[in-house]
């Protein structure tokens, strides 16, 4: 008897864990595709569920979306509709896992539990854009002309393989080279952005300047991965070609350049060649300023360089911005409408208002210092001397930020970018540190990638 009971229990266990855990999902996704048509008839659900990984956009909506009433940190009201913010931190992919789970259940979920809006980042945008999970904005009644003023790269990020636009962003994150004025004066004899630009206008000049910096006792950059995005935004092929990992020539160029600079000690090795380390940030503070430049967009200056702290280079207006060798962008958040949403009209209005309304966007520039996603508005502010940035010694950076990004092409995005970019930089730091040969570091990269994406092969 007992043995029978136990074996019955075990069978049941296996069946439930396996079937319910995984088997159910394939059918769910199929249903999800049909679901949108069923739900189209009904509109104006009571609850608007918004999936996000931090509160950045939430703050913008609370402050600038008309009629938004804040109830508490994760709920609000727009008219009769309750807005429910589902916030999952991005650590260890937790946000995407949570979102995936919700989207898997989208078809069977009650209307009030369905995802209505979700936010994504550029590195994994295609994962959601190239699937039925995100609705084409045209289906919401927003055709391309609505977004005519937005920067092209922000639209490329969320355009699927059929050319349909499936999301929009209120911000642009074009980057630039941010340099320490004091060090520029000492080593290059000038801190005038136009003149400094001549010293970093391409990668050869950049290397020459790095050598000068070293001779004067400064590091060119605070870490090896600072310049990574500048190269990875300008690649000519995808990370994965025919199911195999592909190292683009421009990525290899980054490796070679960085290795040379690391060997010559032109890069601060103390940060273990990584961003955000304690040693990496030393360049932010006057007493420990040892770094000529950082690469970053507008938010980087305002939020990441400790400019609001006493004793920082920024608080003394010690930074300036110039274009640098190549254009790039860093960061940004895109808003997508979830397939199956029961609040299409509201979703459409939120996306339209928050990403295209000139009054809202102007306010965001003025009050939050975001670089907003509207070329006309940014051109206006670029000419306005009132918007000189005090951290940049009064320089107005908007024009410089805008000029670089037009050259960025995102034709070579792939759904694997997030993992590949992360793991590649991580693996290469061992090569830069002299702990591994390039081949060994590459092997580590392959190990990590094939573990992360079982469907791609190393070679």
């Amino acid at each position, binding site marked *: 008897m007992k043995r029978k009971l136990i074996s019955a229990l075990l069978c049941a266990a296996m069946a439930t864990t396996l079937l319910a855990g995984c088997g159910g999902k394939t059918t769910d996704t199929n249903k999800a595709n049909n679901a949108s048509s069923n739900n189209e008839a009904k509109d104006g659900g009571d609850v608007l569920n918004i999936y996000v990984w931090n509160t950045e956009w939430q703050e913008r909506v609370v402050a600038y979306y008309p009629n938004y009433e804040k109830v508490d940190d994760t709920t609000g009201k727009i008219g009769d509709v309750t807005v429910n913010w589902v916030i999952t931190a991005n650590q260890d992919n937790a946000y995407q896992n949570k979102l995936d789970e919700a989207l898997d259940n989208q078809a069977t979920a009650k209307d009030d539990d369905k995802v209505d809006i979700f936010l994504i980042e550029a590195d994994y945008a295609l994962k959601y854009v190239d699937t039925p999970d995100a609705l084409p904005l045209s289906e919401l009644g927003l055709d391309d002309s609505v977004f005519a003023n937005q920067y092209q790269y922000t639209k490329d990020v969320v355009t699927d393989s059929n050319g349909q636009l499936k999301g929009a962003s209120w911000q642009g994150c074009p980057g630039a080279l941010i340099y320490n004025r004091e060090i520029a004066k000492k080593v290059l004899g000038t801190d005038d952005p136009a003149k400094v630009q001549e010293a970093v206008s391409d990668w050869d000049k950049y290397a020459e300047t790095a050598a000068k910096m070293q001779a004067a006792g400064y590091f060119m950059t605070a870490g090896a991965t600072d310049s990574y995005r500048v190269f990875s935004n300008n690649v000519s092929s995808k990370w994965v070609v025919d199911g195999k990992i592909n190292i683009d020539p421009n990525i290899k160029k980054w490796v070679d350049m960085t290795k040379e600079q690391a060997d010559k000690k032109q890069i601060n090795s103390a940060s273990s060649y990584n961003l955000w380390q304690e040693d990496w940030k030393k360049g932010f503070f006057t007493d420990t300023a040892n770094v000529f430049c950082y690469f970053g967009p507008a938010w980087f200056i305002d939020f990441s360089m400790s400019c609001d702290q006493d004793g920082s280079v920024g608080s003394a207006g010690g930074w300036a911005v110039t274009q640098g060798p190549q254009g790039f962008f860093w960061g940004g958040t895109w808003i997508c409408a979830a397939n199956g949403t029961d609040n299409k009209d509201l979703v459409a209005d939120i996306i339209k208002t928050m990403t295209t309304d000139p009054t809202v966007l102007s306010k965001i520039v003025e009050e939050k210092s975001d670089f907003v996603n509207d070329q006309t508005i940014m051109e206006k502010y670029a000419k306005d001397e009132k918007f000189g940035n005090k951290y940049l010694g009064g320089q107005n950076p908007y024009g410089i930020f805008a000029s670089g990004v037009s050259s960025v092409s995102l034709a070579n995005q792939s759904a694997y970018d997030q993992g590949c970019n992360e793991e590649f930089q991580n693996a290469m730091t061992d090569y830069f540190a002299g*702990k591994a040969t390039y081949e060994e570091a590459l092997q580590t990269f392959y190990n990590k990638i094939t573990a992360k994406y079982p469907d791609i092969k190393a070679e």
Partner: protein
Amino acid sequence: MKKKKSSNVVKYNRWGYIFLIPFFVTFIVFQLIPLFGTFWNSFFENYRSGRQQIGPNFIGIENFKTIITSGLIWKYARNTLIMWVLGFVPQIFFSLLLGAWFSDKRLSIKASGFFKTVIYLPNLIMASAFAMLFFTLFSEGGPVNSILVNLHILKEPFAFLNDIAATRGLVGLMNFVMWFGNTTLLLLAGMLGIDPSLYEAAEVDGATSTQKFFRITLPILKPILVYVVITSLIGGLQMFDVPSVLTNGKGNPMETSMTLIMYLNNHLYSKNFGLAGTVSVLLFLITGILSFIVFKVSNEKNVK
């Protein structure tokens, strides 16, 4: 209608089973079923590619072939064992030494209560917080480098976490600091249980402390030592918090501080349930085999 005593006992003894129910229900629900579920998963291709779910498709032992031919699991097993040994050897050495001193009545260590309190303290510290602390302390611009340079022990800051030996050494050091107090107290309990007359007899025969330790203490302590080695080994194979937080889950440099559980964790996070199941099964086998070997080896010596 008086019951016989024997039936009375039987009636009571049924309560034995009843009192076992919470334990076994919990065990079956939260451990046994998941264990079989995990094993079951290892025979299926089951992962996500972007937003697509692949499988589950039954593929027999294909997953085992994939894991074993890639060879990574042996590399990580080796890392795990190396880091365990780095922590365990000093741990057992100092624990025996301290245990012997604390239990030595002639040595009569003063303030032994204070010392016991202090050495046991790190055992209670959250491993993730401790690892985070070590990460900040041993960063190149961190306090440890700053102190060593000021004392002229180092000429320039040393990148501990870029160095294979130093990273593994730090993991070993943390495990040592966290566990030697615990082991000391365990062994001390055993040593205090040894009949003092044995030592007195040895002293009459003119034995030194060293001789007493090796001839009397160690042989009697053997069962506890075996227990300590096995539990520490099992704990060592489960090593995760410390290297994971210290290296941000990467096992840097060059995956040399990547442990078996970190490998498992990577598969769990990327939702590759097939390979995660396979790694679990192999881990289960490795743990079983190693525990068995330790047990056998120590028993054999007993026979001699």
